[in-house]
């Protein structure tokens, strides 16, 4: 079985792969609305010849092997209060990865040698510390930077551990990321489930993420406990058992990281780094593999779907049109499951869905996860919905015959929205636009040396966010999630957007009014467009929380 998760390779292999990364090919760098047709088409790959791969669990260090050098508590906020119970060491280094048997091994920048990186299985009230060591070479040819900083997307973490883009560091350095895994504001309704981590290096996020620096960060608690046989009466007992790339376990809770990539005629991953609008691939990858298959039993599954990007928007359907239950958007369980037959995902958005395969006729032996969103360039989707039959297929789901025991449940009530109980002290307006060919927010270019909003800890604010022009912008907020008060003047209650969000896709001319609390931590954070090509080209603001 071939998987894109490749152990460390010897230096000779790596150098060879690097030398061939870009190969020799002509590329037309001009960019028009029809540019996709101009870009090099990737070589043909036969679909459904490889199984869906899974990243391994991250393994904490054994207690008898403390970190060296020791963690400096003075570098962290409230360290003693949230003293880590688990320590992890994450080396970041280059290796080569093959996304499909018919393509070549291409160099990737990886956490621990695999992409997606090891899945961090976290639990509320169990603080952890992840030491991320930059072991990249000081000279890397091609796209991607050897500078890194790691952001846990949707994490409620201190600024110094948040992966603030200005805290990038080069080879030979490490950073200790302290994850208190606390409930924001101490409110149990603030618990989150599906988070992910990725590189956030200033100016190079898109290149580094595309080159492999991404992984899942899953949070559990007594309700979303990750155990469908949990005897705790509070437990939701959602389909459980996150697969582990190293060990075979129950596997009904399936992380799916979607990314589109492009390959040169030699089968090496390429990226047009001069493209300012966004990068589109023509190969759909799930957990790093191009068009894999996955065997499912006739029972309920939880799929945690993540749009890694860099610039692709998805409208995900099952090819037979069957409905499923949408239980979480981004990291948040919804107040109640919503029965839908498709979900839309902008870059960095997530959706947890429950698909019940026991409902399928016995004659159905396979269905596909398809993307019906038409998108012809990095600016955003056209708004057209592709016909089901001609939509790109991402993942083949092979239905095993025979009924199986299924103890999992989907409660009718999941996670009510937290109260908006902090008084609003200020209202701010942010306009995501473009001027002189540059991405701007409120007409300004990002400058991390400038604080664009200083916010007092323990307060709440209302922000009005708007866009214009011909680009879609998934707007992402660090540290805190937001309640969408209105979207284009209308309430979103009762929709998949009715919960909270940390990233929300705004299309040309859209407006959104949000409520946010600013709690628990001090320091520098950012809000930015999560079309990470736009983010790298200055579509970001810095905001600080101060005492």
């Amino acid at each position: 079985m071939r998987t894109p998760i490749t152990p460390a390779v010897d230096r000779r292999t790596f150098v060879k792969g690097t030398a061939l990364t870009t190969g020799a090919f002509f590329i037309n760098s001009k960019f028009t609305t029809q540019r996709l047709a101009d870009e090099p088409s990737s070589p043909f790959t036969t679909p459904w010849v490889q199984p869906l791969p899974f990243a391994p669990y991250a393994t904490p260090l054994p207690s008898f092997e403390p970190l060296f050098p020791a963690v400096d508590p003075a570098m962290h906020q409230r360290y003693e209060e949230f003293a880590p119970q688990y320590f992890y060491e994450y080396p970041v280094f280059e290796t080569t990865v093959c996304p499909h048997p018919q393509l070549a091994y291409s160099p990737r920048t990886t956490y621990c040698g695999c992409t997606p990186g090891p899945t961090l299985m976290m639990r509320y009230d169990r603080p952890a510390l992840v030491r991320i060591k930059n072991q990249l070479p000081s000279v890397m040819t091609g796209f991607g930077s050897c500078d890194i900083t790691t952001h846990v997307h949707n994490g409620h973490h201190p600024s110094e551990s948040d992966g603030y883009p200005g805290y990038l560091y080069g080879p030979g350095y490490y950073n200790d990321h302290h994850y208190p895994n606390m409930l924001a504001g101490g409110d149990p309704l603030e618990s989150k489930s599906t988070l992910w981590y990725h590189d956030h290096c200033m100016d190079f996020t898109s290149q580094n993420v595309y080159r492999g620096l991404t992984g899942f960060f899953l949070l559990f608690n007594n309700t979303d406990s990750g155990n469908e046989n949990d005897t705790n009466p509070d437990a939701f007992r959602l389909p459980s058992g996150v697969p582990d790339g190293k060990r075979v376990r129950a596997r009904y809770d399936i992380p799916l990281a979607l990314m589109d990539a492009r390959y040169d005629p030699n089968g090496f991953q390429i990226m047009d780094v001069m493209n300012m609008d966004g990068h589109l691939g023509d190969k759909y990858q799930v957990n790093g593999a191009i068009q894999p298959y996955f065997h499912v039993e006739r029972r309920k599954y939880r799929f945690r779907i993540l749009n890694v990007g860099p610039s692709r928007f998805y409208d995900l359907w099952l090819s037979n049109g069957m409905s499923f239950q949408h239980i979480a958007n981004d990291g948040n369980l919804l107040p109640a499951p919503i029965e839908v037959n498709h979900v839309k995902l902008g870059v960095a958005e997530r959706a947890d869905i429950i698909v019940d395969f026991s409902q399928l006729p016995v004659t159905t032996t396979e269905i596909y996860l398809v993307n019906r969103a038409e998108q012809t360039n990095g600016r955003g989707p056209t708004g057209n919905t592709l016909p089901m039959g001609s939509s790109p297929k991402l993942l083949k789901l092979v239905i095993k015959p025979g009924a199986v025991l299924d103890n999992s449940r989907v409660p009718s009530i999941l996670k009510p929205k937290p109260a908006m109980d902090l008084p609003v002290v200020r209202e701010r307006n942010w306009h995501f636009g473009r001027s002189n060919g540059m991405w701007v927010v409120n007409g300004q270019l990002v400058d991390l040396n400038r604080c664009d909003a200083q916010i007092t800890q323990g307060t709440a604010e209302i922000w009005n966010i708007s866009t214009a022009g011909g680009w879609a912008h998934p707007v992402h907020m660090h540290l805190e999630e937001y309640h969408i008060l209105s979207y284009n003047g209308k309430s979103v209650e009762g929709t998949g957007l009715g919960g909270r969000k940390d990233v929300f896709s705004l299309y040309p001319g859209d407006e959104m009014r949000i409520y946010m609390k600013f709690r628990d931590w001090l320091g520098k954070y950012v809000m930015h467009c999560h079309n990470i090509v736009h983010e790298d080209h200055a579509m970001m603001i810095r905001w600080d929380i101060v005492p």
Partner: protein
Amino acid sequence: MSAHAPRPEGDASLTRRHALRGLLLPAAGLIGGCAAGQKSRTDITASASSVEIPEGLGTFVMNPDGTRSFKDHVLRDQDGNTLRFQSDLMKGHIFAANFMYVHCKGICQNMTTQMSLAYDLLQPIMGNPARFYSFSLAEDSPEDMKEYMIARGIYGRPGWLMLTAPREVVRDIRWGFGFFDPNEEIDQDLNGHTGMARFGNQKTDKWSACPALGSPQVIARGILGVMPVNERPQLAGIIRESDHPARRIPTAKPAT
């Protein structure tokens, strides 16, 4: 529109350009075999010198060593010297490049100032780590460019060149650097021209961009960001913020 007033934002319904779309012909020997695993180094036989850049705006070619070659346009600098774009300006260099013109009353002077301050930040510490290129969008004469540079105190600075060429040449370079608009009218509008700076390291094919109107620290960081790590200092406030939490990895654990 007044000179250099902020340009209106683009429109999704922009007219489409139909410039020649050169297809990405693989260089010799590229397609052979799609078998899994590593390909042989000998699969690639083309070299930069043996292939021609395909027609079309902003086209370039990737070389076997992972670098890229642009068209070797002819330009003149502020002293009237003739320079080749690929051979003299790109090949082997680390650089920061922007697009401007001498008689601009808007963002150009500010861009020059910010880039000059970035130069000032880096020069005392690193000498001349990068070249600074300013490409004229308006076919400025060498004399005008020289006068502009003298007036702003940048004339004579090692590695700083203002460069002029026919508009279509500079447009091709601009497109090659990714600064263009799909709308022909907006793309050609001098009043709303790009304010971005492109940072490049041709030797490692490392590229990034940031606003040339950004702070000097931002621009300096952009330059350092495309440099090999072992050739750049960890400048406080530029590459590393003063409150940066990262620490150096020790070489070895002490003996116990």
